[in-house]
Every structure is written in structure tokens, then in C-alpha cells.
């Protein structure tokens, strides 16, 4: 394992611990979907994105839209670790005085590029950001991280059509494909699967990876960046609750607060003394 991969792995481990503590303290939140997306977000923010925590509104920065806004504890923990704001803010999640809203708010939290939380809208907003880059002559990349369940929303496909129509090579969409949604397994709720044949038919550059393997994530981003004439999608197979064995396979952790002892067990499972 290279040093870079080791560092990302360690960061993701700490982010998982951060977000579990945050949700425990907030007494509200979505641990399962946050844990599934941690590695993708960690790879993006610590591994590939052009950002400056000192200058969160830097016009030339890469953008990242967390379309699955309910996973924001993961994003907040990452932004704090990058220095967009103090880690002292993290325990305030969802409280009245806090800058950390229940779902991301671009005006309250430094480093959040887009308000999100109402599902399915991220790719469409990303479409606008990518078009803005083209109009303004800036070469930033727009990343969108979406869940798989939220692809059931119609606006997703409206945006998919338009992004290919405009040949937005600087739009890269990650699907955090954890196969679960609020009400249960995606395949028991909708006819969404298979996803990639649909996107191939829409003209997108498609890749399929293990969303918990940093080498694969970084390589997929590299390939997507080389594709300049079509938007890219990276379908990342993930596990809801990844890192915390007792949360895996139990969809009650979609939105549930770990008790004191459950938190301890989860933190112990994640290992290390921090």
C-alpha cells in the first residue's frame, strides 16, 4: 500500500469515528449512508480536488455537490479536518446555534458548495456549475456524489440528458451504490437497476469500481478526467454502514442514533486509539 493510500485510509477511519460521535451527540442523523460515502468523499477532498480551505469561495476551485445531503456528517468531518472550519464545530451538528445544519447549507458552512438534502437534484445543479465553468472559461471539475436510490427521481435523468447534450467532460458523478434506500433494498422498491446500461445509453463515460478501495477510486477519477468530451459516471459499489460491522445489513441504521454503548462498540471496531 502506498503512503498516499495509507494516509487516505487513516483519514477515512478518523472521519468515520468523527461522524459517529457527531450523530451520537446530535441525537439525530444518518450513520449508515454517511459511512458508505466516506471513502469516496475522502478520496475526492484529500486526494484529487483543487481546493483552498483558506479561500472556500475561490472561483477556480473544484466543486463537489453532495446530492445525498443526509450523509453530511461525513462531509462536515472532512471539511473540518481540512481546516475549512474548526473541528470544535462538529459536536454542534443540528443544534440551533451551529453552522452545521441537518442537511448542507452553502451559506452557513464554509466549504459547502451547494445546499442539498432534497434528493435527486445534485446532478442538475452540477450541470449548471459545469456549464458555468465553460461560460467563464475556468477549468475546474464539478463532482457530484449521489446515492443510488435517489436516481429514482426524474430530474436526475433530465440532467443526465442535458449533460451529455452539452458534452460536459468536466462533470464527474459518483454513485454511492450501497443498494439500500430509506425503505429498504433499492431492488425491492424500484426498477432502477441495472444503472450503467442506462447511463451508457445516455452517452455517458461509465466506470464501475469498489467504492471502498482508494486505489480504484483515484484511478477512476484519473480516467474520468481524461474523458473530456462526455460527462463521466463512476458507479462505486459501497456498503451501507461500512466500517461498523453491526450496522452493516441492518437498514435501521439508515437513520438511527447509536447509544453510548453502541458508539463505544462502533469506535472500537474502527480501531486505533483516536
Amino acid at each position, binding site marked *: 500500500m502506498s503512503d498516499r493510500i495509507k494516509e487516505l485510509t487513516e483519514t477515512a477511519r478518523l472521519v468515520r469515528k468523527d461522524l459517529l460521535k457527531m450523530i451520537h451527540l446530535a441525537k439525530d442523523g444518518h450513520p449508515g449512508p454517511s459511512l458508505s460515502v466516506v471513502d469516496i468523499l475522502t478520496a475526492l477532498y484529500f486526494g484529487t480536488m483543487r481546493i483552498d480551505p483558506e479561500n472556500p469561495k475561490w*472561483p477556480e476551485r473544484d*466543486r463537489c455537490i453532495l446530492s445525498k445531503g443526509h450523509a453530511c456528517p461525513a462531509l462536515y468531518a472532512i471539511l473540518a479536518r481540512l481546516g475549512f472550519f474548526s473541528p470544535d464545530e462538529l459536536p454542534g451538528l443540528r443544534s440551533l446555534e451551529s453552522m452545521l445544519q441537518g442537511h448542507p*447549507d*452553502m*451559506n452557513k458552512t464554509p466549504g459547502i*458548495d*451547494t*445546499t442539498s*438534502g*432534497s434528493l435527486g*437534484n445534485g446532478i*442538475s*445543479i*452540477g*450541470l*449548471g*456549475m*459545469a*456549464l*458555468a*465553468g465553460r*461560460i*467563464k472559461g475556468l477549468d475546474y471539475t*464539478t463532482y457530484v456524489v449521489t446515492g443510488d436510490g435517489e436516481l429514482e427521481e*426524474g*430530474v436526475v435523468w*433530465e*440532467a443526465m*440528458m*442535458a449533460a451529455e*447534450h*452539452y458534452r460536459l467532460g468536466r462533470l464527474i458523478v459518483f454513485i454511492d451504490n450501497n443498494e439500500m434506500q430509506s425503505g429498504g433494498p433499492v431492488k425491492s422498491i424500484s426498477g432502477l437497476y441495472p444503472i450503467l446500461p442506462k447511463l451508457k445509453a445516455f452517452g455517458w463515460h461509465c466506470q464501475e469500481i469498489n467504492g471502498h478501495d482508494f486505489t480504484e477510486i483515484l484511478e477512476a477519477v484519473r480516467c474520468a478526467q481524461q474523458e473530456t468530451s462526455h460527462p463521466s459516471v463512476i458507479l462505486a459499489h459501497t456498503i451501507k454502514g461500512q466500517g461498523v460491522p453491526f450496522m452493516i445489513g441492518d437498514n435501521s441504521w439508515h437513520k438511527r442514533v447509536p447509544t453510548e454503548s453502541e458508539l463505544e462498540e462502533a469506535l472500537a471496531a474502527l480501531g486505533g486509539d483516536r
Partner: protein
Amino acid sequence: MKQENTRIAVTETLMELAGKDPDIVLVCSDSLLVIKAKPYVDKYPERFIDVGIAEQNAVCCAAGLASCGLIPFVATYAGFITMRACEQVRTFVAYPGLNVKMIGANGGIAAGEREGVTHQFFEDLGILRAIPGITIVVPADAGQVREAVRAVAHQEGPAYIRIGSGRDPVVFEKPFPLEIGKVRILREEGRDVALFANGSILPRVLAAADELSQQGIKASVVEVHTLKPLDVETITEVLSQTGAAVTVEDHNIIGGLGSAIAEVIAENKPVPLVRVGLRDIFPRSGRPEKLLDYYNMGVSDIVAGARKAIEKKGER
């Protein structure tokens, strides 16, 4: 009555603005022909985005553009922005306060006229008024649309401008500056009743004021072109002077101007009120002038409303 197309007024004003400001972008949802924007597209193809028949996508896309510093104008039918894409307007434009400008065509039953209910939009203002942070402008005619487009382009934040069918009456012969957030008192002689109105129905209101005058009733006419933020102070003053009010709008009487004035009346200056507008029903296709008459928005309805409001004064 002389006509000027409010949709062409939007496009021409956008072209004028785009020539000066490289951040102006037009976003359509296959609505290019709706707002007659071909000349804009020919001149500024790189600042024209058509997302197809997909209003939710148009609004989110505009939010993305605005968050990167551009000034997108989303232009399509009023109901498709405010109903089909309502949640996108609320959560991704209004909530973050993004600099997205929305142009809603076919505002009112007269503007939807022969298309029928699917294209007659009489709920748009009520829907948007319930969402925090959106400037809502209902210009009277094409000249006022030009003023409104310029005004919202130069002010930061979300805005909605309601326009018509393209066969829109000229209300004001001369250019008339439009100050966002202020009412405009068109007739001040009235001490008997105030007629509050906006949009292309204004000529009927002015005609009603003339008729009332012939009957010895002095009516003030107040144009409330900005429904939000509402000029509560001036409206309250007018209510104090007249002691009775009529609202006239080509919109459902629930949610729009009638409701806005009713709120001011209830909170600041209780006086009798009669609301003239679509009476909470679905209308039919028809010629615009006939439609307005048929659905109780005729000059005689306004006159009768004024008399009724004045009558109620005595009952108090």
C-alpha cells in the same frame, strides 16, 4: 386597444443587458419560442442554455450557474416554473438566496386564454409568495416588463417576473420608471375607495375608476406591481385615507394580491375589502377579454365591488 408583446420585451431587454454584462445567461426549457428568444440565441449562443422540456432541471441548472457567479434568467410558462419546479425554486434558489431570475409567461387566465387550464396560470403568485426571499413583480405591460427585467438584473437575489401571452395591452403610453418594492399611485383623487391592482388587467381598473367617478364615487387606483416585498407602509396610508378597498387581479383571489392586501388590512387597518379575481375555480378556454368578463373580472364587477366595499363601510 394597442398591444405590445411582453415576451419580446423580455428578450430585447435581456439582449440589452447581455451586451453590457457577460454574466447574463438565458436558460430555457424548450421555451425559446415562448419568449421569442431567437435573436438572443443568435447573438449570444454561448450564453443560452436549453435543457429541454425539463423545468426542474432548468431551475437547478440555473442554481448551479448562479452559484458560480452568473446571472441566469429562467424563462418559460409561469406554471411550469412555479408548480413543476416549485421545490427546486424553493430549496435551491430561494433558500440559498441565489441570483436566479425567473420569467413566467401566461400569467393569469387571460394570458392562457384559448389554451385552456393547462396553460392558464393563476396560482403562480400565491405559490411564490409563500416562499421566503423571492422578489415578485407583476408588470402592467411590455414597457414595464423592460423596467422590471432591468431592475431585477441589477439587484442581488431571486426574483420572479410575471408576463403575459404576447398579446398584451399597452397600459402606459410612456416609459415609466419602476421602483421595486414600492406601489404606484395612479389616481389619488379618491377618498371613497382604493382599487389595488396589478398586471394587464389595469386598464379595466382605470375604466372602473372613471365609471365610479361618473357615479360620484372617488376611487384611488394603486398599482401593486411588486407583490413582494410589499409596500405595506403606503398601502396602509391609502387604506387610512379611503376606508374601503377592492383588489383586482388576474389570479385566484386566494394567495395573490387579494390575500396580500387582506393581510395588510387585517393587521394594520381593518376596512371592508372586496376581492375581484378568479373565484377559486378552474376556468375555460376563450378569448381573453371575454374570459375576464365571464369570470367576474369585468369593469362592471370592479364597479360593483367598489360600491359593495363602500356600502360595508356604513355597516361598521
